[in-house]
């Protein structure tokens, strides 16, 4: 048994961490968060060169053919640096959808362009990941799609969208195709705008396989990656809180010498430490332990969501009034963690799903 990262994985971690630390500063995040797209395009280009888009895409299509745990390691670094670039939907969920359910022609059309970073695909699966609200749904009538689908991720700059209709059929829709309207909704995290897709007799382009298992796997991977990103973001917030508590003096001593502050930091650290293993394991199980994959993803995201909320508010508290300002920029991490919590199923939703999965309660009707 070896529960840890391989040499190659440590290299991936180091190269992304190094690059992101060097490239991203607060001004860059601040500027991007105010922009319409919420995406730092030059940074995206730099990360394309590092292979970010093609992590999960097979080498046959120009990707690196890596596994979800490798992507999770990268997601942790993206969260740590609060990278203002799309990731979970376009570079994890979309390629998985094409790989699991796309025809060879669809794969050949999209995967190489995704792998190079030339295109991005938004994902609107909230109806399957967390249920539908106000009956928003997409109905397929004779290969014409009608309806409204909210909460599309990574969609503001996307060239296409992945959606699932009420029959569980996955479709790719091109931005700008007749009958497809994208409504951009600003979210608390300016680098993560949400979009609502309005479809009016839009041309359906179904993925080849109608597979509920594929939808489940895509959502599962998305959840794990969001948990990983929140983990990285929370670790960064703790690091900053600790550093600040060592510098800031009140009553003639560093505030970090007071137990009120010190113990809060210790609690954050204690809560966060096991989350790393929880996230690593869920990502590993995704590829290697089919019998444990579904449950471990639900437990990982639901737990990380809770720990993330605790750490994000506590780290701001440690900074006192400064933590509340825009000067420190901590709020960006706070918002990313809050954003991720609500996407692809919030913790209550996920725990209910975990109970159903284990047969503790009856499946949802």
């Amino acid at each position, binding site marked *: *048994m070896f529960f840890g990262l391989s040499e190659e994985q440590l290299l991936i971690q180091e190269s992304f961490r190094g690059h992101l630390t060097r490239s991203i500063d607060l001004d860059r995040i601040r500027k991007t968060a105010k922009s319409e797209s919420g995406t730092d395009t030059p940074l995206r280009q730099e990360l394309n060169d590092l292979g970010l888009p093609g992590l999960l895409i097979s080498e046959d299509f120009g990707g690196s053919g890596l596994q979800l745990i490798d992507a999770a390691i990268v997601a942790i670094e993206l969260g740590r640096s609060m990278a203002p670039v799309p990731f979970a939907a376009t570079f994890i969920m979309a390629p998985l959808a094409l790989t699991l359910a796309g025809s060879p022609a669809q794969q050949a059309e999209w995967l190489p362009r995704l792998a190079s970073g030339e295109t991005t695909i938004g994902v609107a699966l909230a109806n399957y990941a967390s249920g539908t609200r106000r009956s928003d749904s997409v109905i397929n009538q004779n290969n014409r799609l009608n309806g409204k689908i909210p909460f599309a991720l990574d969609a503001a700059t996307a060239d296409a969208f992945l959606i699932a209709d009420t029959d569980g059929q996955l479709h790719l829709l091109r931005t700008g195709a007749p009958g497809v309207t994208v409504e951009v909704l600003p979210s608390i995290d300016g680098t993560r705008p949400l979009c609502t897709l309005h479809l009016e007799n839009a041309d359906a382009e179904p993925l080849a396989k109608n597979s509920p298992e594929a939808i489940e796997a895509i959502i599962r991977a998305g959840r794990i990656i969001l948990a990983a990103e929140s983990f990285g973001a929370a670790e960064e917030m703790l690091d900053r809180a600790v550093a600040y508590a060592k510098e800031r003096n009140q009553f003639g001593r560093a505030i970090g010498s007071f137990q009120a502050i010190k113990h809060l930091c210790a609690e954050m650290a204690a809560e966060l430490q096991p989350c790393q293993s929880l996230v690593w394991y869920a990502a590993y199980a995704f590829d290697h332990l089919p019998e444990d994959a579904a449950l471990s993803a639900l437990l990982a995201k639901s737990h990380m969501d809770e720990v993330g909320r605790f750490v994000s508010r506590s780290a701001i508290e440690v900074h006192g009034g400064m933590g509340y300002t825009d000067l420190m920029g901590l709020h960006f991490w706070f918002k990313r963690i809050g954003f991720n919590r609500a996407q692809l199923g919030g913790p209550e939703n996920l725990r209910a799903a975990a109970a159903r999965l284990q047969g503790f309660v009856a499946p949802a009707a």
Partner: protein
Amino acid sequence: MDLADRAEHKAFRAEVREFIAAHRHLAPEETADSYRLLPRPYSEKVRKWQSLLVDKGYASRTVPKSYGGFGAEPDILKTKIITDEFFRAGLPPALYNQGVSMLVPTLLEHGSEEQKKKWIEPTIRAEVFWCQGYSEPGAGSDLASLQTRAHEDGDDFVINGSKIWTSSAHIADMIFCLVRTETKAGKYDGISYLIFSMDTPGIEVRPLQTMTGHPSFNEVFFTDVRVPKSQVVGGRGKGWKIANSTLAHERGMLANTNHAAGRLQKITGMLKSETLNGRPLFENAVMMDRFIRLQARVQALRLHEMRLVTEAATGKPRNIADMVCKLLGCELNHQIDAFAIDILGEIGVLYDGVPSVHHDSIWQQFFMYDLGLIIGGGTAQIQKNIIAERGLDMPREPKSAKG
């Protein structure tokens, strides 16, 4: 990541399973929990079982053969395989008392050859029962301020003072004890680590009634207790360093998540079988939510333990990941107990094995005992100091009277 056993460990797991299948009829019915809750002398069956485990290398595995152990190379993965397989089979694991977990590692590292030869084998074979004389009424979290003193008289030390929270002192044969022997030295350098018999004249043990109603702790009073100087371990004035180095051995004693997993398993059964108004409790959304929250915490700690096992096996130095275990493990156990009590409702307050009740009333005992563990062995607050100061490198607490 590679969670499969490698060939050597796969073979070892098979060997452990084979041993269990062949010998499980010899295992005592008593669980480790029952000894924890109610310390008492070991039965003949427990001692024989323990001795068998030592012979086969499933207890005190790395203790050298010359001191009565199995003499295996340290392999934390094998240790974990043993623990997991015994748990899986529902067998009590090897004894894990203060003699085995604290005294033996201390003697191996700091003891004289004579001390090792004399005490290690009977200790690991459960023939000699030890208690630990560390805390005092005035020296709890600030242990180094202890005041039990010994003055020299010829070849002996003569001890006066008292200890408190001494688990099992009323049944122990021997004590390892921190005593201030060097009157001129400072706070930390004046302490020696002494071992002596609990039958020595001048020792009085008074049971300390605790909230569980069971006597598990004691106060121990020393009046002119005479102990030969040769029974100092590791040299005069070295007691503080020795006691601290022993704590480093606790790495092997990670928050044992098998306990938490086992209790959660029991709770699953309770949520299915307990009904309210004719419906299983799992259908209560709040109960269900609480259960899955705990399940996620158990899973997180279980996986964290696997990470630590890997780190230890690959020689990574102790770090913040180790320091959080006591705090998290004790808190989690207590939360699990609390949940079990809530599931049982009114039944949950019945106590001391009420025969008419279909669930044993042990959960209240756990609930109180585990609160004791949150406090004992370094309180949760001391753990947070350790995590912050050593793990996060935050400024230390002001310390007075530094030696």
